[in-house]
């Protein structure tokens, strides 16, 4: 079923890469040298932000996993996972993270006890091979989380999985539901006359806008990110925006998580996925709201909550360590303002002024002046 996604030549390259890594390890062992696995260091400290490039770029930091008593278990699991990947390629199949976790139950003592363990090993392998130009999809690993939901003036063109027939999916025709972004989006094509894409943090706000067909009123596409957007969601929005040439506006809670994690990851990617940020982010996204200033401008003080310790820590971390925020003075000011106010406001705080205030007043007013959006 994976047909059409990965080319035969890619498959060959993938197998070669795996065999190459394994051979290096085997050679080391034969010479009684401790074998090593080298992978990029996936952390904020190892990314650089360049405004022109538009995403977190992976730097030269590398993590070496040398075989030792302390690493022997992970080492064994990594090799077994690579072997699994090779099997998937040769049998033209794929495995979700959950699948791989269950596959590991056949590995005897090297099996994973919890899925986060297997996810981490998978991310390591992915990053390791990313250095050789082999993607996760090439390795036949797919995420099992869904990539957000979409509603609005958009037609997505997909293919029937069995017949290969072209299918046009009209995102206006999901009634009270919405279109779910698949975990693999590279093959999708789009048709739309919408003027912009609105990426919304919470499912609650998405529901409100969708149930009132706000997309019709504003001629836009609504995307519910459901927290930090998944890779598929980021990639979907990126491809849609670039192929259709329309802007992307983010609409999140006004708190360090909404700004520092959700919006930042949507726009420039994350430290953890540093090796793939190039493709899995939306550099032209801008921030519609809620801005800290909005709390004052829209009289939301009554509907705020105090910042807790973790919120504050997040904000300070962003100011201190996050290359994205360090690149934009307006963002630093916004975060500092938030810290000074010591409050946070959720998107739905706007309901303070009436349930439809957000559609009737807030969004229209904001959209009149998109230049004022934060970068």
């Amino acid at each position, binding site marked *: 079923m994976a047909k059409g996604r990965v080319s035969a030549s890619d498959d060959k390259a993938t197998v070669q890469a795996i065999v190459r890594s394994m051979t290096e390890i085997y050679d080391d*062992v034969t010479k009684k040298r401790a074998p090593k696995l080298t992978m990029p260091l996936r952390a904020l400290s190892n990314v650089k932000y360049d405004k022109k490039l538009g995403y977190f770029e992976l730097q030269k930091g590398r993590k070496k996993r040398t075989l030792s008593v302390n690493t022997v278990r992970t080492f*064994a699991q990594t090799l*077994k996972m690579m072997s699994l990947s090779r099997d998937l390629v040769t049998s033209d199949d794929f495995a979700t993270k959950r699948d791989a976790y269950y596959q590991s139950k056949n590995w005897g003592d090297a099996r994973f006890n919890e899925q986060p363990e297997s996810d981490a090993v998978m991310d390591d392998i992915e990053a390791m091979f990313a250095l050789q130009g082999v993607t996760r999809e090439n390795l036949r690993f797919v995420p099992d989380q869904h990539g957000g939901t979409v509603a609005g003036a958009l037609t997505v063109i997909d293919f029937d999985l069995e017949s290969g027939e072209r299918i046009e999916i009209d995102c206006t025709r999901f009634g009270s539901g919405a279109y779910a972004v698949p975990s693999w989006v590279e093959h999708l094509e789009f048709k739309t006359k919408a003027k912009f894409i609105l990426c919304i943090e919470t499912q609650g706000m998405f529901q409100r806008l969708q149930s009132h067909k706000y997309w019709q009123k504003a001629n836009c596409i609504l995307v519910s990110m459901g927290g930090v957007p998944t890779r598929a969601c980021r990639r979907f929005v990126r491809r849609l925006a670039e192929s259709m040439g329309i802007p992307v506006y983010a609409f999140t809670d006004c708190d360090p998580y909404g700004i520092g994690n959700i919006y930042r990851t949507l726009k420039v990617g994350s430290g953890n996925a540093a090796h793939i940020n190039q493709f899995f982010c939306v550099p032209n996204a801008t921030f519609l709201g809620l801005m800290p200033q909005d709390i004052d401008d829209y009289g939301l003080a009554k509907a705020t909550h105090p910042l807790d310790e973790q919120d504050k820590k997040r904000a300070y971390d962003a100011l201190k360590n996050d290359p994205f925020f360090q690149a934009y003075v307006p963002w630093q000011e916004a975060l500092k303002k938030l810290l000074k106010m010591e409050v946070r406001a959720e998107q739905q705080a706007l309901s303070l002024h009436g349930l439809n205030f957000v559609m009737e007043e807030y969004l229209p007013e904001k959209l009149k002046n998109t230049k004022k959006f934060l970068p």
Partner: protein
Amino acid sequence: MAARTKKDDAGSAAPSKGQIREIAVSEFFAKNRHLLGFDNPAKSLLTAVREGVDNSLDACEEARILPSVKVIIEQQTENRFNVAIEDNGPGIPKQHLANIFGKLLYGSKFHRLKQSRGQQGIGISAAVMYGQMTTGKPADVITKMEKNRAALTLKLQIDTKKNAPKILAEGELTKGEWAERTSGTRIAITMEGAYKEGRHGVLAYMAQTALANPHADFTVIDPKKQVHRFPRLVGMLPVEAKEIKPHPHGVELGTFIQLMSDAKGQTVLQFLTHAFSRVNDQLAKEVCAKANVKPGSRAPDLDRGYMESLYNALQATKIMAPPTNCLSPMGEENIIKSLYWLCVQAQQWDEEEGGEAEGAGAASAEAAAKGAKGVAQAAALAAAAGAAKKAEPPAKGKKGKKGKESPQAEFRFDVAADEPAHKPEEKVDALSAVRGLATHEDGESFIASEEKGYFVTAVSRPPNVYRGNPFQIEVGLCYATRLKADALISVQRFANRVPLQYQASACAMTKATISAPWKSYGLQQSKGALPTGPVVLMVHMASVWVPYTSEAKEAVAHYDEILKELRLAIMECGRRLDRFLRRKRREADEAKKRSYIEKYLEPIGEALREVLSLTQGEKQKTLENLKIILERTRDKSAAPDERGRRE
């Protein structure tokens, strides 16, 4: 103490004129028997045993005889017991016989400065008096001094009004057991009492006494006629403590004046050099010069003011520390043997039938171990807080009720497992079982087995001085996984080899134990409390004069010098324990790592085989190589700990 109390009493009687008369010390104690430890039936019985055993041990040691002491307790009615203490000591000359047992404050120990168990010579005669008061029965004494002479027998009471013995019957024994014996003494007292089991019981006391007297052999026959033996572990008597003269810095002004007034026919110079240790002619002259006293003047005739300035001059002069040959410490090796035997060995045998005596290593130990089983258990049995619980399961319940004393005082070698039946009659060669037991490394004595989970060590501090009195601190520490791990450690306190059973919290030994940083030695410790762990800590203070907090002789006073020595010894034991525990942990880690490696080699080999299509032979070779590589890294990862151990 006796003298002081008497004076007080006379003072308070003064106002009622006409009835003023001297009170015999025995009369006073007859009315105030709690002062001597006869405050309740159970304690009275124990006190009688204690006094008898202390006397026996002191007598044997002074005569350089390896002590064998037998305690027989017979129950006559519900609350009437006959307590007999029998030893192989030198016997007592006929002229002293009646006075020793029948006159209070008669003894050889009060007027000298020498390390001994008893101090006042009050104990055993008080027991006789107590028996006589509660039952009206006289005490029975048998004593024999030479093999070829007949043993003397004596029935005696105390005339409390006169503080004098009253002999009811006298005789000689020419037949039976006593005819065969070389020497020895037996005292039997019929008294009201209660036989208690548990931490303040007779057996617990005997186990403690055995712990501090490994050169002695103890047998206890309890009211159920069960025999408990605590075998001799050391074949040598402790070094004999020499009698010394008081050190000038340990004498109070009143005593000084008294001594001086008594120094008939002596000049000041003679008095100073004769009455005290470490005072020579030169020093005495120096002191006289300072005090403006002529060295040649007659000592008793000196004006009181001069006596005082002489005293002050003496205190202000730097004088060499007193000689320490008046002390007889237990010795590190003996402490280790004792702790090992009572806390580790006895219990190991419960577990493994005739198991080898780990650490002893010698074949003889193994052989002895088999024979020793029953005896060792008897020891463990007595030592357990619930004591003798084998025969009576409810004893465990009893333990909970004893809430009066702080739990720190508990004599506790608690074992989690139930004790199996024991055969007390079996002979044991404990002596050879513990011979050559301790290992000596870098000046540290210990025995240890990470595998079996025990570690025993001991520290004897060099002698030191408080207020002119020489003393020496010894601490033994036994860690054994078979002891209770979730209870406070057990602190066994001893002064001149006598167990201190009460007032643990008031004792300097407990205070010093609590003040040690046990957390950094690998035990848990709440603030201001003893640490928690499977540990028995034995603390011994040897001194010519042990400073008790009260006349009850139950807790050692908090002198800075004593606390400091205690802390140093306890902390050294703690550091050694820490190293042992770290070594033990490391070995457990090692074992874990080894199995860890084995576990994950196979999947690595398998993954390589799958992807690289290796043959079984190649895979096998790979596994071997992987093992070599990992063993190498394992050694490296162990290295930092090794460095940590040596610090």
